[in-house]
């Protein structure tokens, strides 16, 4: 059985994260609001969220990596 997080939640949160980050960067004068900047960062956020959700790479709090590996290998 493969490791798996929550891809749907990751994609939605990534999309929202990218959208808010676009506004933050605009307010901090890192870049101007444009059609490209409004589309790319949410898509990048969606990709990151989806990737993290599909792979489940974030360590579970309070568990070591060895425990995780051992658990997966037994299946």
């Amino acid at each position, binding site marked *: 059985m493969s*490791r798996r997080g929550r891809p749907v939640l990751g994609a*939605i*949160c990534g999309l929202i994260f990218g959208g808010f980050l676009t506004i933050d960067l605009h307010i*901090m004068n890192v870049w101007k609001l444009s059609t490209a900047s409004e589309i790319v960062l949410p898509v990048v956020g969606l990709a*990151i969220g989806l990737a993290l959700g599909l*792979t489940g790479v974030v360590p579970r709090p309070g568990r070591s990596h060895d425990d995780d590996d051992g658990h997966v290998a037994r*299946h």
Partner: protein
Amino acid sequence: MRSKLAPRVRAPRVRLPRWGDSRRWATRLVAVAVMGGGGLLVMAGPAAATFTTNTTNCAGSATIVGTGSDAGKTVSVNANDAKVTMLRQGHVNWEGSVPTATHNNQGNVVIHLGLISVTAKSWGPSKNASNKVSKAGVARIPSALKLVPPGTYHMTGYNSSDEGTCAGSMELRFTGSILSSPIGIVAVIGTLLAAIGVVFAGIAKALP
């Protein structure tokens, strides 16, 4: 006991995904995403401004006198300027001129907010039967500008007439901290919550 005649069937070796595999893939995807975002940052450099079309040789300038929270501040801007640091409250004393009279003038000024464009002012068609070559006036800065979060906004404007067109663009810069506007506060809180959601989504579910 196993019969000697029974064919020995070896189960296909299935390579189970390991911690290192998923981490490598996630690292690759994140690297691609970061490179994409970095590329966009390079693309989003400061843009040039001023006149894009000026067949009528128009000219103009304005002086913004601050009031309320911006009292005591004065900003001068010329139509040739590429960038202006705007005040949020005050009056704009503007003037515009052309060397020879133009007729049937019409135009507008639009502020572009990414996918959204807001028309700040529009005018005409105006016949200009008296053949005026200059015009001046006083305009009040809209109160909605107090709520606009800090940042740089792209503004375009044009005036077309029978004799030609005058068009240009300018960058409006509003100063202030990220927490100085309600939209900024919502954006910061939303970013943090969404980031927590992304990290939570990346935690592997407990296996049964």
